[in-house]
C-alpha cells in the first residue's frame, strides 16, 4: 500500500524522458523561429505558428507539469475552464471588427 501511495503523490519519471521533451521543445522553437527567418507569409505562416505553439504548450503541460499522470478530475478542472477564453476571442473579434468599421467610416486615419 505504501508503495502505491508513494507512486500517487511522487512524480518520479526517468530523466531520459525530460531530456527527450527538452530536445523536442528546442526543435519546435527552432522551427517556429525559422518560420519568421524564411519570411513565410499567409495561411501557411499562421498555421505553422499555431501548430508549433500548441504542440509546445502540450508537451510542457503534459510532461514537465505532469498533467499526463494526474487524476482526470484535476485535469478537467484545470484544462476545461481556459476554453472559455476561446469564446472570449470570438466575442472580441466581432467587437474589434465593428470598431475598425466605425473608424474607417467616421474617422479615417485616427
Amino acid at each position, binding site marked *: *500500500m505504501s508503495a502505491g501511495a508513494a507512486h*500517487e*503523490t*511522487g*512524480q*518520479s*519519471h*526517468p*530523466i531520459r524522458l*525530460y*531530456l527527450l*521533451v*527538452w530536445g523536442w*521543445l*528546442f526543435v519546435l*522553437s527552432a522551427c*517556429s*523561429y525559422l*518560420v*519568421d*527567418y524564411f*519570411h513565410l507569409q499567409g495561411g501557411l505562416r*499562421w498555421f505553422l*505558428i*499555431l501548430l*508549433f*505553439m500548441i504542440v*509546445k*504548450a502540450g508537451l*510542457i*503541460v503534459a*510532461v*514537465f*507539469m*505532469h498533467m499526463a499522470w*494526474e*487524476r*482526470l*478530475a*484535476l485535469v*478537467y*478542472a*484545470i484544462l476545461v*475552464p*481556459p476554453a472559455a*477564453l476561446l469564446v*472570449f*476571442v470570438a466575442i*472580441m*473579434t466581432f*467587437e*474589434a*471588427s465593428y*470598431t*475598425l468599421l466605425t*473608424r*474607417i467610416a467616421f474617422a*479615417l*486615419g*485616427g
Partner: protein
Amino acid sequence: MTGFAFRSITAAQTRPGQWRRLSDEWSADRQAFRGASWRKAMMWIFLLSDTFVFGCFLLSYMTVRMSTTLPWPNPSKVFALEIGGTELPLILIAIMTFVLISSSGTMAMAVAYGYRQERVKTALLMLATALLGAMFVGMQAFEWTKLIHEGVRPWGNPWGADQFGSTFFMITGFHGTHVTIGVIALLVIARKVWRGDFDTGRRGFFTSQRGRYENVEIAGLYWHFVDLVWVFIFALFYLW
C-alpha cells in the same frame, strides 16, 4: 483493504469510460483531487487564474491590433539585432526562448532528482534554473532599454500603431515580473534543499510548516507555467 481489492476487480472486468470515471471521481470520493496534495491543487488553481490574467492581456492585444487603422509595426524588424554586420530578425527573442526552455528542462530534472532524495543534484539544478531565469530577465531589460532608446512609449512609437507600445510593455512586463518572482522563489527553495530541510523536517521560517520534496515540484509547476506563457507570447506577439 476490502474496498481496495473490490475496486481492482471491477476495474479489470470493465474499464469504465472517461465520462464515467470523471463523474465517479467528482461524486464518489470525499477528496476529488486524490493523488494531488492540497498544496499542488492550490498551485494549479492559482495557475488557472493566472491563465485568465494573461489570456485577457493577449485578448486585449488582439482587439487593439485588429481594430487599428494604422499599420502594426513589424516585430520581425523591430526586434532585429545586428550581429557581425548582418541583420538577424528576432534573434534576441529566439535566444530568450531557448534560455527559458532550457530553464524548464533543468527544473523538470530538479523535480525528478528531488523525488529520488538526491539533495545536492536537486539544489544545483534549481540554481541553474534560477540563473537561466535571471539571464532571461537581463535580456528582457536589454530589449526594453533598446526599444525605449528607439522611441517606443506606451502612447506611441516611430513605426506605426500607437497601441504597439502599451501592449508590448504590459504583456512582457507582467511576464518578466512573473519570471523575477519565480527566480526568487527558486532561490529560497533551493537553499532549503541544499540545507537538507526536507530530509530533516526543519520548519519553514514563514509558515512554520515542515516542507517536503513536493515543494520542489510545486515551485516547478509555477516555473513551467511561466515558460508556457512565454510560448504563447512568442507565437502571438513576436511571430504574428
